[in-house]
């Protein structure tokens, strides 16, 4: 029964992503599809963020650093070898003279994200509360500063284009579902449960023999690897990357998605990412001109960003614990009752 219950919890997030992919893939014009693909990649990023923030209860502003490392490494290493020395002449020769396929670049992105998170996490995971939050913010600041200025490892201050666009519906959906499944498997493992115990009551958890530092480091590393992977998906969707795209705005957006959905459940992470993304698409389209009963409304540019901020505020005010209330998905009671009734009749 408990295993079935577990699958039920996993069903919600996976079905939500699959539904989003299916509906937008079938019914949305091909020009608009990239917006929905972005939404699916955001699901992957937010689920990766959730692995650390949701399970540990420590707010991290640093996970986008790992998205950035993944996106930059996957981007730089897949630029075709015949054009690379021309567009990025200042790279280290190891990076300049070699290129890999997109599939391998995703593995590289996950690996580098994980290694970076592990290295950063060893000292930082000793901190708690606000000190931990600010230290991770400092990591984000350093990552951005290095990516923006150091021409030997990437494009520096310019936006790097010519990156192969390989993240299609198939890859984005499979990638996001893979991140969700790994996040779920972690959260149900004994490591995930130990960390969640430490989130609820650190003193009691320590008394029960839980090594909080080790558990946080594990979650931080896994979250870093998944973030790096999601960053790889992101860069192969955009086809170009600049340091500003993986800095403060993305950090605030993904944290807001997580909290709006419900910070302490995987379902909340997925629902939050999808909800905010859908509102965003709606508002961006409305800004371009919307036709309602013969009326045509056009909003000035930038209005969609104001709108999305208002949407976030309203949701938070109405549901301070998030849309899901931080609870995992469960089949509604009426469906259970209907099934039981069906069984009795047959």
């Amino acid at each position, binding site marked *: 029964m408990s295993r079935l219950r577990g699958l039920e919890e996993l069903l919600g997030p996976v079905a939500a992503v699959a539904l989003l992919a299916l509906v937008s893939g079938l019914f949305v014009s091909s020009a608009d599809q990239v917006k929905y693909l972005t939404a699916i990649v955001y699901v992957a990023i937010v689920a990766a963020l959730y692995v650390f923030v949701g399970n540990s209860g420590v707010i991290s502003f640093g996970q986008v650093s790992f998205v950035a490392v993944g996106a930059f490494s996957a981007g730089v290493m897949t630029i075709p070898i015949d054009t690379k020395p021309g567009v990025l002449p200042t790279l280290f020769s190891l990076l300049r003279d070699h290129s890999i396929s997109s599939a391998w670049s995703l593995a590289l992105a996950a690996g580098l994200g994980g290694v970076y998170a592990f290295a950063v996490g060893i*000292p930082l995971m000793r901190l708690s509360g606000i000190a931990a939050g600010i230290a991770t913010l400092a990591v984000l600041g350093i990552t951005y500063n290095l990516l923006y200025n150091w021409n030997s490892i990437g494009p520096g201050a310019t936006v790097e284009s010519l990156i192969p666009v390989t993240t299609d519906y198939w890859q984005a959906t499979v990638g996001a579902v893979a991140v969700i499944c790994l996040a779920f498997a972690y959260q149900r493992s004994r490591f995930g449960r130990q960390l969640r115990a430490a989130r609820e009551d650190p003193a009691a958890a320590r008394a029960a023999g839980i090594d909080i530092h080790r558990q946080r480091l594990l979650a931080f590393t896994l979250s870093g690897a998944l973030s790096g992977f999601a960053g790889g998906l992101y860069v192969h969707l955009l086809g170009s990357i600049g340091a500003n795209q993986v800095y403060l705005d993305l950090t605030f957006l993904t*944290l807001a998605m997580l909290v709006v959905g419900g910070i302490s459940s995987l379902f909340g992470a997925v629902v939050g990412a999808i909800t905010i993304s859908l509102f965003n698409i709606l508002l961006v389209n409305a800004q371009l001109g919307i036709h309602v009963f013969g009326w045509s409304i056009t909003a000035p*540019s930038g209005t969609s960003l104001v709108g999305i901020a*208002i949407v976030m505020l309203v949701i*938070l*005010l109405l549901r301070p614990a998030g849309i899901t209330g931080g609870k995992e998905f469960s089949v509604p009671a009426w469906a259970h009752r209907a099934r039981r009734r069906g069984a009795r009749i047959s």
Partner: protein
Amino acid sequence: MIHIQNLIDAVGLGAVFALIAVGIGLVFGVLRLINFAYGQLIMLAAYALAFTDSWPDAASILLAVLVAVVASLLMERIAFRPLRTADPSTMLVATFALAYLLENAALVQYTYRQQGIVADSVGTLAQLNQAVTIGSLHIRWVSFVAIGAGIVSLAALALLLNRTSIGLQMRAASMDFGTARLLGVRADTVIMAAVAVSGVLAAVAAVVLSISSASVTSTTGLYETLFVLVGVVAGGIDRLASATLGGFAIGFAISLVGAELPSSGETPFTSNVYMPSVIYLAVIVALLLRPAGLFARGGRGVERV
């Protein structure tokens, strides 16, 4: 001599950052909330200065203070008060949303007026940006303005906190909100007082910042606030004095490191484009050594895991 000049500039920036730090620290004291939208209060005040550039300076500054205080109180009423009992992460994200809202509202305003983003300059006050020459030192007036404004504001605040009833209530509330309420401190009043004072400080910071940059954009105050937030926590956010010192220290360090590092150099940490990395690295080290803050009193440390 160039080093002395850099030192004076650094004290100037430190003074502005100390003001921002006090604004953030006051609100943190009573609400336990890090207000990421504080930079946007500074931006609003700076816009008020820019739009009233033709007015007499005193009237212009007065309006800026009014705008920042009203905006600050509105933030409290709309977002902080309903979420006071919610999870801290909810309130934090609400401040992101507010920051995002105000920043983009400023951008939309520009789209409407069909202007460049960097258009509004603070003309009359900008004259203070000129340098005065003392011996071989070239010091901009704004450094003196910053130091003066910092000293006057902090002194006024110290009087408010130590000599008035509402100041006493604020200090009590920031030590133990629950007990303070039991003893008759009104939660709404004390929070609104703290939020209003933080608005005044945002306006003062806006005056100094817009003198030295001479133009206002939708991101005015954003990066300053980010650095101050980091500095405040590194200094020790639990006490106003240590938070203020932290803010001062980070402003001082930014200015000095930026001026003393060579201006060219490709490898990380060898030129002043890497100044943020140097600062952030120092902050991480400081937090690891003293998680409760560099200037926090010993004894009552933050528990490490």
